[in-house]
Each structure stands twice: as structure tokens, then as C-alpha cells.
């Protein structure tokens, strides 16, 4: 059935539009395109990539339309009012009181992430036209990429948890398919499996959490809001009502957060992300930096009221989310220092930035974290695509910075330029976009009282600057080394990226043509690669101004459009305005008249009438002094790292070279980092093996002894029974009966044969004897 949440209120008539009403089309277009690519792709002139790019452009258009109409909607609403999301459902399944549907739930967060996903998917698909030209599974790559986009877009517009899980799982599947795109090499397929299993471990939490929340919330949501316990807005309002028991919502929140840990690469389930770099670079830039890995962050942001109450955010003490986020920032940043593979550096950087987002969410800094999703997508995708550009055109498909790169700024100016812009954005330098998002996270974390984690964030900023400087230096400065210098490498010297070095894939047939290519030397890539880089770098530069808090509240557009107001609303979505029209928002933590706004009770108390859709959050006011301090820290990191790089790599200063071998402490630290804190050893060799081995041994024993025993036993028993039956019943009884009748007949015959002796006398005797007896009988009977 078709049900629509009404937002046409008597007081507040919110504007809607065609794109908003039909935002569900956004995932449908790539989904249809996926099927078209699968069925018709190989026959098309461009091998199916036409469908992919066209569908992503279509989604982008729809997402853009929806975003525009959402902005109109927010702008048309009174200041501070709760702008209800555009929700539609069609019932998919209902049985014995439980029903869930499929539909859309479009609000600011949805629209922002839709734009990001559609936009970056489009750019990555265009990039892949050049990057994967001639690949052995070109069509399937585009199919998987399109399906991924469909899955993520579906998850973003999901109206209920079941639909969200559907999108989540599609993304996991496509991640597996895409990481293992060159599965002929064992390392790639192992990496794909590792990614899948690790995220799967987290997904246990997703299902458990959904179930816990459903069973706790369903009664309240059906009664108060008329939606099932799967519905997202139902769960959000339920969490902020007084209804949930503390245990239920905490367990649900923890379970869902475990899923987010797995998907977003938080400690301790972060080990799969660096290995996922075995996939092609477009995959790394789309899935594993800007879109899929933020799905966990998106989940937390989407169901924020659940986490807000369940983890007791803004409650004063550290909670699970903020701790995990904080740990992740630091350990990933440290690991980025010892990587020689440029993609792995970027992977750990992604993990670290995801830690920032989680920490922000855990500390009540909802908007900065979501904004960081937005900006991080652009500059991280740009960095990855830049790395791909380098490997494609200069280092002959190698990603080894120390071995095959160096001094490339002269040869690849566009790549270099976009890389630098994106790095600056990543480090959070003013006025690049990262400044407006990452620094806001750190600021708000401190503002909300989590001072320790603020320092953790600042330390992370220092480390980020340092390792990015190292990576930049090794790649673009110094002298060209290895493949960049034109040296021809053996195939086996490439590690997990050996798959890239498939000359046949790229239309080169023999080594002679390869040498001809090599003699060209490192050069800039074609426009299909550089134009996306330029677009992304421009966004890395400018997207921060969407929420430019330093310049005043008027520039805080992102916040206005995306952050839900913490008003108390009546269940049909009409706002109860507390304390006068337009006065339900608060800009600072003190419930004062400082800005003339009163505080909403959402998040802290149970609303008496109506429901809450979002909790009341605090926003730190911007101070240039704080900004200056974080800039100094970044500068310090940059300078220190530059110094060490020059000493170590350029001048080969004896004091630095081989330092980790000489110094015991540094050597231990280095070994720990190179072995990724031995976490992989723990997971694979200890945990998995100790569980899998006994299970497999037990199952093998069961198979051999019990199952085979049963089968063999059945066989022997049958044989024994058959033999016994044969000997005793068949031979003795049955044959005996048969033979017996024969011998009886024979015996009777032999016994009776003398009667027919042929002797007349005897016949006469018999005759008269019988007559005598007959006569006697007659006589006796009749007397």
C-alpha cells in the first residue's frame, strides 16, 4: 500500500517538490542500469560503461534536484522550526502485526550524502573509462560499481532499518566483488575475503541491534506515530521519548555501533581497509575513502537519537563511541608513517579521518562530523584518484613510493597541484575545506567537555600533517626512482599490485612495446583522469564555505539545511513551537537569553506533548584564537616531518638512517607499526584458527566416524540381515516349504503307488473291501 507522511500542516506548510517526492528514483536508476550492463554490456560499443556513466549522471541530476528542493523547503520554513522529512513507504511485507516497507526518508542528511555519493560515483566512473581501459573484466567492473552506487544510494534514502540493511549488504557484496576484481592473484582475493568477513563480523551487530530496537520500539511507534518499529523516524522519536528502557536502548546502540565499527574501519575492525587497497584505484577512491566506509558514520548520524540516549552522549563521561573514535585516530595515523605504498598511506589516513567523524559524533558534535563526511569525500577521493593517476602514467602501475616514485611534480603538474590542494584540505589548513570541518570537530569535542579527546584530535592533526608531508615528499620531490626513472621492473617485484602490471590488459602485447612506453617516461595523464581531479580539488578548496562558521552565522548554510531542529513536534509532523514562534533553537550551551533562544527539552527530558525527532545539541562558538592554535600544530607537524624527510631521504644523514635498527625503543616501535600492532596475527592466527580448527576437526571427526559410520553400519547391517534372511528364511523356510510340498507329493505318490499294482486280485480285494466297509457303515448308521 502507498502511505505518505503528511507534512501539509495547518500552521506550517512546508514546500515540497517533484524531486523530493521522487527521491527514491535516485537509487533505482543505477539499479536498472546494473541489470542493463549485465545483460547488454558486452555487446555495447563501450562495453557497458555508457550505461554506468549515464545512470550516475541521471542519479546526480535527481539528487541535485532533490537537494535544491530541500533547500527551498528549509528556506521556506520559519526560523528554527523542525523541517519534517519527506517520507514515503510502500508496504513490502506484513505478517502477524509486523510489517515493514520500502520507501524514502528524505531530510538534510539524506540530501547531502546523496549528492556526495552520486557526484563522486559519476566522477569515478568517468575516471575508470581511462584507468581500466582494456581490462579483462571491464563490463563487470562497471556493473559492480553501478550496483554499489545503487546500494549506497538506497541505504541513504532508506525509510526503515530493513531497507538500510539491504543497502548495507549490497555495498558489502560490491566491495567484495570490486576489491577482488583481479582475483587471479591470491593476495587480491584474500584481501576481498578479509574485507567481507571483517565487515560481516560487524554486521552481526546490525541485525541484532535492529531486532532489539524493533522489539523495544514497535509498540510505542505503532501507537504514537503509526509506523513500525523499523522506521527510522519512528526509532528516532522513540529514543527521545521516555519510553525506552535503559538496557534496551543501550544494547541496541552498542550492537548498531559494532556494525559501524566494522563498516567504517574503526579500531579493532580496521584491519581490512588497508588490505582493500588491492582493488583498482577507482574502487579505493569511491568505496574505501568517500562513500562506503562512511556508511557506519552515516548510520550513527541517521539514528543519532538512539545513540544519543543509548550511549549517553553529552552525559559528561566518555562513552564507547568517542573512545573508539579517539583510539582509531591515533593508531591509524601512526601506522601511516611506516607505509611504503602510497595507497596504504591514504587508507590509514581514511581510517584516521573516520575516527575523527566517530569521535565527533560520540562527543555530540553531530553537524561537524556530518560536514566532515561531506568535505572528506572530496579531498580523499581526489587524493586516491591522484595516486591512481601517478600509477597509471608514471610509475607503471606501481604504488611503491620509495621504489618507483619521486620527483614527479615536474612531470605531472596537474596531479601535483590537485594533490597539494587536497593534502592541505586534509590537514585542515585555512581556507581549505578540511579546516571548516575537522577543526570544528576538535573544537566542539572540547566545547562539550571531552577535553582529553580534544587533545587526541589535536595530536591527530599533528600526525596527519606529518605523514602526508612524508608521502608527498617521497612521491613528488627528490629524484625519480625505479619505474618513474624509466627502469623496467620484473613482474614479481610488485607486491599486491602485481595484478596491475598486466601488459596485455592495457593493449600492450610484447615487451618491445612496453619499452616504447617506458621510454616515454613519466607524464601527465589524459583528460579523462585529470578533469575529475581538477573538479574534486576545486571542491576540496571551496566546499568548506558551505558552512563557514568563522564568517558568521549567515554562512552556516550546511547547518541550516542539514541539521534537524530539536523542536518538539506533534506526531504527524506539525511543530509545537516551544517558547514562541521560531524560538526553539539554541546556539550555545548555556540555556540563557544570550542569543534569545530557549532550549528544547529534546534529548534531556521527556516531552509532555508531542515527540522529539532530534536531540538538542550544542555548538561551539568560533574563536580565531582556537583556530590559530590548531594551525600552529599543523604547521609544526609539517615542518618537523619535512625536516626528517630531507635529512633521511635527501641528505641520507647518518644520524637518521638506520635509526630504528640502532635504537631499541624506536626499533620496537617500528616493528610494532610494521606488523600493524600484531592485530592481523591476533585475528587470523589466534582467534580464527583457534575457533576454526577445533570446529573443523570436530566436524571432520563427525563426518568420518558418525556419518560414515552410520552409512557403513547401515550397509553392513543390511548385508547381515540379507545374509541371515537368505540362509534361514529363503533357504530353509521358503525352499523348505517348496521342497516339502514336492517331497510330500512324491511321498504320497510313492505311498499310493502300490494300490495300482496291476494285479487283479488286489483290485478285487480293494473293491470288495471298500464295499464291505461301506455296507458296514450303512448298517451301523441305519440300526
Amino acid at each position: 500500500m502507498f502511505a505518505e507522511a503528511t507534512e501539509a500542516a495547518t500552521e506550517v506548510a512546508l514546500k515540497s517538490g517533484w524531486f523530493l517526492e521522487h527521491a527514491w528514483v535516485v537509487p533505482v536508476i543505477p539499479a536498472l542500469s546494473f541489470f542493463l550492463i549485465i545483460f547488454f554490456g558486452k555487446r555495447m560499443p563501450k562495453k557497458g560503461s555508457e550505461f554506468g556513466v549515464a545512470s550516475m549522471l541521471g542519479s546526480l541530476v535527481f539528487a541535485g534536484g532533490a537537494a535544491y528542493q530541500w533547500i527551498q523547503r528549509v528556506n521556506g520554513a520559519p526560523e528554527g522550526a523542525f523541517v519534517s522529512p519527506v517520507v514515503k513507504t510502500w508496504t513490502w511485507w506484513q505478517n502477524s502485526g509486523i510489517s515493514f516497507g520500502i520507501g524514502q526518508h528524505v531530510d538534510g542528511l539524506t540530501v547531502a550524502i546523496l549528492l556526495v555519493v552520486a557526484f563522486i560515483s559519476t566522477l569515478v566512473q568517468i575516471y575508470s573509462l581511462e584507468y581500466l581501459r582494456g581490462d579483462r573484466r571491464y563490463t563487470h567492473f562497471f556493473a559492480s560499481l553501478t550496483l554499489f552506487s545503487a546500494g549506497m544510494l538506497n541505504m541513504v534514502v532508506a525509510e526503515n532499518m530493513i531497507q538500510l540493511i539491504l543497502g548495507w549488504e549490497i555495498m558489502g557484496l560490491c566491495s567484495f566483488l570490486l576489491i577482488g576484481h583481479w582475483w587471479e592473484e591470491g593476495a587480491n582475493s584474500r584481501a576481498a575475503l578479509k574485507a567481507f568477513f571483517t565487515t560481516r563480523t560487524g554486521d552481526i551487530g546490525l541485525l541484532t541491534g535492529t531486532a532489539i530496537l524493533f522489539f523495544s520500539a514497535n509498540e510505542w511507534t505503532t501507537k504514537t506515530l503509526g509506523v513500525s518499529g523499523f522506521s527510522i523516524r519512528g526509532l528516532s522519536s522513540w529514543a527521545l521519548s521516555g519510553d525506552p528502557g535503559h538496557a534496551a536502548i543501550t544494547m541496541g546502540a552498542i550492537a548498531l555501533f559494532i556494525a559501524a565499527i566494522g563498516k567504517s574501519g574503526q579500531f579493532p575492525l580496521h584491519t581490512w581497509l588497508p588490505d582493500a587497497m588491492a582493488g583498482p584505484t577507482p574502487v579505493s577512491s569511491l568505496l574505501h575513502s568517500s562513500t562506503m566506509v562512511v556508511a557506519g558514520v552515516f548510520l550513527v548520524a541517521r539514528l543519532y537519537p538512539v545513540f544519543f540516549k543509548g550511549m549517553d552522549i553529552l552525559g559528561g563521561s566518555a562513552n564507547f563511541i568517542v573512545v573508539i573514535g579517539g583510539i582509531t585516530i591515533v593508531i591509524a595515523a601512526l601506522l601511516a608513517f611506516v607505509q611504503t605504498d602510497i595507497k596504504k598511506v591514504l587508507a590509514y589516513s581514511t581510517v584516521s579521518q573516520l575516527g575523527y567523524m566517530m569521535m565527533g559524533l560520540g562527543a555530540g558534535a553531530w553537524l561537524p562530523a556530518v560536514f566532515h563526511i561531506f568535505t572528506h569525500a572530496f579531498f580523499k577521493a581526489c587524493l586516491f584518484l591522484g595516486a591512481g593517476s601517478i600509477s597509471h602514467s608514471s610509475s607503471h602501475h606501481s604504488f611503491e613510493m620509495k621504489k618507483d616514485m619521486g620527483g614527479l611534480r615536474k612531470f605531472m603538474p596537474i596531479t601535483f597541484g590537485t594533490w597539494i590542494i587536497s593534502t592541505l584540505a586534509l590537514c585542515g589548513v585555512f581556507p581549505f575545506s578540511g579546516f571548516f570541518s575537522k577543526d570544528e570537530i576538535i573544537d566542539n569535542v572540547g566545547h562539550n567537555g571531552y577535553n582529553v579527546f580534544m587533545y587526541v584530535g589535536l595530536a591527530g592533526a599533528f600526525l596527519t600533517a606529518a605523514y602526508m608531508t612524508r608521502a608527498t615528499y617521497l612521491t613528488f620531490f627528490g629524484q625519480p626512482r625505479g619505474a618513474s626513472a624509466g627502469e623496467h621492473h620484473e613482474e614479481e617485484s610488485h607486491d599486491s599490485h602485481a595484478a596491475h602490471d598486466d601488459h596485455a590488459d592495457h593493449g600492450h602485447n610484447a615487451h618491445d612495446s612496453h619499452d616504447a612506453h617506458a621510454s616515454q617516461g613519466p607524464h601527465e595523464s589524459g583528460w579523462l583522469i585529470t578533469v575529475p581531479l581538477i573538479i574534486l580539488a576545486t571542491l576540496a578548496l571551496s566546499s568548506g564555505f558551505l558552512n563557514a562558521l568563522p564568517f558568521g552565522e549567515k554562512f552556516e548554510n550546511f547547518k541550516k539545511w542539514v541539521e534537524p531542529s530539536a523542536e518538539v513536534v506533534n506526531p504527524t509532523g506539525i511543530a509545537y513551537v516551544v517558547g514562541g514562534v521560531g524560538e526553539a533553537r539554541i546556539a550555545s550551551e548555556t540555556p540563557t537569553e544570550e542569543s534569545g533562544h530557549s532550549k528544547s527539552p529534546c534529548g534531556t527530558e521527556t516531552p509532555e506533548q508531542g515527540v522529539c525527532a532530534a536531540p538538542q545539541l550544542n555548538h561551539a562558538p568560533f574563536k580565531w584564537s582556537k583556530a590559530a592554535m590548531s594551525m600552529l600544530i599543523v604547521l609544526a607537524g609539517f615542518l618537523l616531518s619535512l625536516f626528517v624527510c630531507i635529512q633521511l631521504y635527501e641528505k641520507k644523514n647518518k644520524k637518521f638512517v638506520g635509526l630504528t635498527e640502532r635504537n631499541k625503543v624506536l626499533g620496537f616501535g617500528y616493528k610494532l607499526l610494521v606488523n600493524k600492532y600484531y592485530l592481523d596475527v591476533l585475528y587470523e592466527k589466534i582467534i580464527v584458527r583457534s575457533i576454526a580448527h577445533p570446529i573443523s576437526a570436530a566436524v571432520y571427526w563427525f563426518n568420518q566416524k558418525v556419518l560414515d559410520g552410520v552409512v557403513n553400519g547401515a550397509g553392513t547391517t543390511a548385508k547381515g540381515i540379507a545374509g541371515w534372511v537368505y540362509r534361514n528364511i529363503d533357504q530353509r523356510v521358503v525352499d523348505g516349504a517348496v521342497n516339502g510340498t514336492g517331497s510330500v507329493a512324491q511321498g504320497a505318490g510313492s505311498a499310493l503307488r502300490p494300490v495300482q499294482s496291476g494285479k487283479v486280485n488286489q483290485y478285487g480285494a480293494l473293491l470288495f473291501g471298500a464295499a464291505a466297509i461301506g455296507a458296514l457303515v450303512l448298517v451301523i448308521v441305519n440300526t
Partner: protein
Amino acid sequence: MFASDVLVAQNIGFAILATIMVIGALRVVTTSNVVHAALWLVVVLAGAAAQYVLLAAEFVAITQVLVYIGAVMVLFLFGTMLTRARIGAESDLNNKNWFFGIPVAIALFVAMAIALDSGFGSQKMPADAAVATTQEISDQIFGPYLLPFWALSFVLLAAVVGAIVLARRD
């Protein structure tokens, strides 16, 4: 004769004849001389004829003597002669299982005796039985029993032809 129930002469006559007949019959079946058996049979047949007279069946008696003793016994003796029967006693004229004949005969006699006794317990012959004349008998033969008479003539013819066919040498 005496007009009394007890016809003494016939009874005595019957008793003597019966004794002679029974002894003769016994000798027929037990003697070990074939010729003697034939002669004893003659005795039996003669006794039977005498009995017929007692039973006021004179024509039958004469016929018995003529046919049976006169023809049949001659036939028997011829047969004995032609089959080289030993003149004198022979050792074994009884077959292997001769013993079974005794119980059979006795059982049969017992059955018949009981039946006769219970059936005709003390019935007497009518005292005024008239002797059957030849004319009456011929009236019967050529009257009601004509058909059997003709059949009988055929039987005799067949017997003669059959005997010749069987016994001729070729």
C-alpha cells in the same frame, strides 16, 4: 405234504444241501489242485440246483444243471487242460496277499448278516408256493422280459465271436 409251518423234509433237505454247498465252496477256494477245485465247484453247482428245486424253481434247476454243470464246467476243464495246469496238487495257488481276503470276506459277511437279520428277521416262506411251470416262465421271458432276452442273445453272440477272435491262432 404236511399242512404245517414246519416243513420238516424241506428243512432237513435244505440243511444237508447247504452244508454240502458250503464245504464244497470252501474246498473250491482252498484246494491246491485245480482239477479238484473244478470238481468241487461241480458239487456246489449241483447243490445249488437242488436248492432251486426246493425253491420251487424246477426249470431253473434243470437249466442250471444243463448249462452250468454241463457246459460251463466243461469249459473250465478244457481251460485247465489247455493251460497246462499241473495234474495233481500244486504248491502255490494262493497269491501273495491271500490273507487280506479273510477280513474282507468276514466283514462283508458280517455286514450282510446284520442287514439280513434286521431286514428279514423271522419272515417265512409262504407255505403254498406253487411250482413255477415252464409255460409261466416262457410267458415271462417272451412277455415283459423280451428285450433282455434279445439283448442276451446278442451278448451270447458277442461272447462266441469274441472268444473265437481272442483264442484263434494267427
